[in-house]
């Protein structure tokens, strides 16, 4: 077995031998299931009955809006588990035994990135179970079409898993750069819940800034997945240019992979090389 495969298996064992992975997965499931159900109600005829304006989305588009809650609100979870994987080692000083077993730090970090990509994919599946599980049920119950036989919808579901995978690797990269667990959690929460949404809203107001705003990680995620909350808002409101300026799905994927690669490279050249005292 190669060194990287060994490091990957060890990292998986590390992740699954403490509780944080399933606690985060549980919260992810609940949060996405709840949001998807609410959203499914709003895009259904029921939403119109309750006094809303009729939503001009076809059944596949409204189903996708519901299913993509996994990434539009849930990408926080893979990035957190990834950041925790990198920073727990310093917080609990387990970096010492880790480096005693595999002293080549680049291999340890590569193993972490690969292992957490798998965990991210698992989170993608958990998220889909929540969004499709409750969303499709609510859509069907309110007389809509869950559109699960639509090949476009199927490909969106697959790309959701890919997006969650990439976000977990971004988390590892971020953790390897920042090092401190508390600081990295604050950065993740502040950026995903506050800074990026504002940047996207403000950036989307003008054509010039929209060119940059679409390279924001959240916008790239929407591009990769093929629509999301913000993009769909744009579709509902033609004065919002952001929908039209989204990247192609593969470009969105490359942007996310680029963020992950740059963070990992910076981390492995800086914090990750420090003396372990």
């Amino acid at each position, binding site marked *: *077995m190669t060194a990287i495969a*060994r*490091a990957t*298996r*060890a990292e998986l*064992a*590390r992740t699954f*031998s*403490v*509780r*944080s992975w399933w606690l985060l997965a549980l919260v992810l499931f609940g949060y996405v299931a709840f949001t998807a159900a609410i959203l499914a109600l709003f895009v259904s005829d029921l939403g119109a009955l309750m006094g809303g304006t009729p939503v001009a989305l076809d059944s596949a588009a409204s189903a996708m809006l519901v299913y993509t809650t996994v990434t539009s609100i849930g990408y926080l979870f893979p990035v957190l588990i990834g950041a925790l994987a990198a920073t*727990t080692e310093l917080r*609990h*000083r*387990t970096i*010492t*035994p*880790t*480096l*005693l*077993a*595999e*002293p*080549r730090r680049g291999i340890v970090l590569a193993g972490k990135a690969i292992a957490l990509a798998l965990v991210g994919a698992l989170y993608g599946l958990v998220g889909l179970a929540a969004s499709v599980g409750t969303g499709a049920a609510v859509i069907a119950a309110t007389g809509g079409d869950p559109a699960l036989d639509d090949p476009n919808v199927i490909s969106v579901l697959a790309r959701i898993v890919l997006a969650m995978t990439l976000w977990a690797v971004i988390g590892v990269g971020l953790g390897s750069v920042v090092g401190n667990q508390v600081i990295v959690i604050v950065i993740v929460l502040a950026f995903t819940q506050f800074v990026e949404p504002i940047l996207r809203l403000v950036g989307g107001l003008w054509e010039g800034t929209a060119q940059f705003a679409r390279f924001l990680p959240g916008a790239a995620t929407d591009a990769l997945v093929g629509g999301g909350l913000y993009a769909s808002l744009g579709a509902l409101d033609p004065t919002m240019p952001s929908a039209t300026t989204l990247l192609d799905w593969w470009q969105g994927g490359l942007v996310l992979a680029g963020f992950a690669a740059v963070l990992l490279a910076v981390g492995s050249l800086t914090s990750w090389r420090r*003396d*372990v*005292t």
Partner: protein
Amino acid sequence: MHGPTITIEHLTKSFGEVLAVSDLSFTVEPGRVTGFLGPNGAGKTTTLRALLGLVAPSAGAALIDGRRYRELERPLAMVGASLEPTVFHPGRSGRDHLLVQAIAGGIARDRVDAVLERVGLADAARRRVGGYSLGMRQRLGLASALLGDPGALVLDEPVNGLDPEGIRWIRGLLGELAAEGRTVLVSSHLLSEVQQTVTDVVVIAHGRLVHQGPLESLGGGAQVIVDSPQRDRLASALEAHASVHPDPRGLLVTGITAAELGHLAFSQGIELSQLATVNEGLETVFLGLVGDDTAAVAS
């Protein structure tokens, strides 16, 4: 089993302005238990961490059979180390910690239960480390060190936190490991902690080597505490025959036995109010070496 030789060659390490280790050189041979001694802050841990590839030397090298730690094929099978009892995730069980190490180090999984058995931790192995006592963490650290059945063991203050029964047990274990031909390097800030176990000593202070050799080379030998109503007269009478230091209990005399001293005092007509042999001689020599005279007197 023939353990590797550990060589520290002109090792220097500074953290910013602080010089932790300065041009330190010594050798650790297989089949012996080597005590790595010095007061807290002398640079012992930094030296061990440099040996294990955790800290990059500013100059010099720390080698295992001529190779750096990171160049070893399967390091856990070559060198087993236990550095501090605080390097475990509190939410992970002791057994899972060892399983992770086994996977990461390419060690067969059946070694996990074997080492848990050997350190007497089998019953607590499935509990989370957060609930372990300091002594149990020391045992888990030792289990990690033994996991790869390594030819060399590097243990930093392994006696800390162990109860008397645990201390006796670890002394026996270290002796066994060395008798099997392994290289055993044990650090301590107290010579008395490892005095009964070690065959060789390396003493450092302020990051520099102050002594290396077999335990006996520290000297020590008979030390006598003596006092007299005519203490000054006694001191000047003894100075011709032995080295005399003032001590809170009277005079601390080395290089002469209690019987010889009693005879000397009798022949000169000096009355003695106290005469006793003390066996802390090595510790006093050690503390003298590391330049901590106040502690020597206090002990």
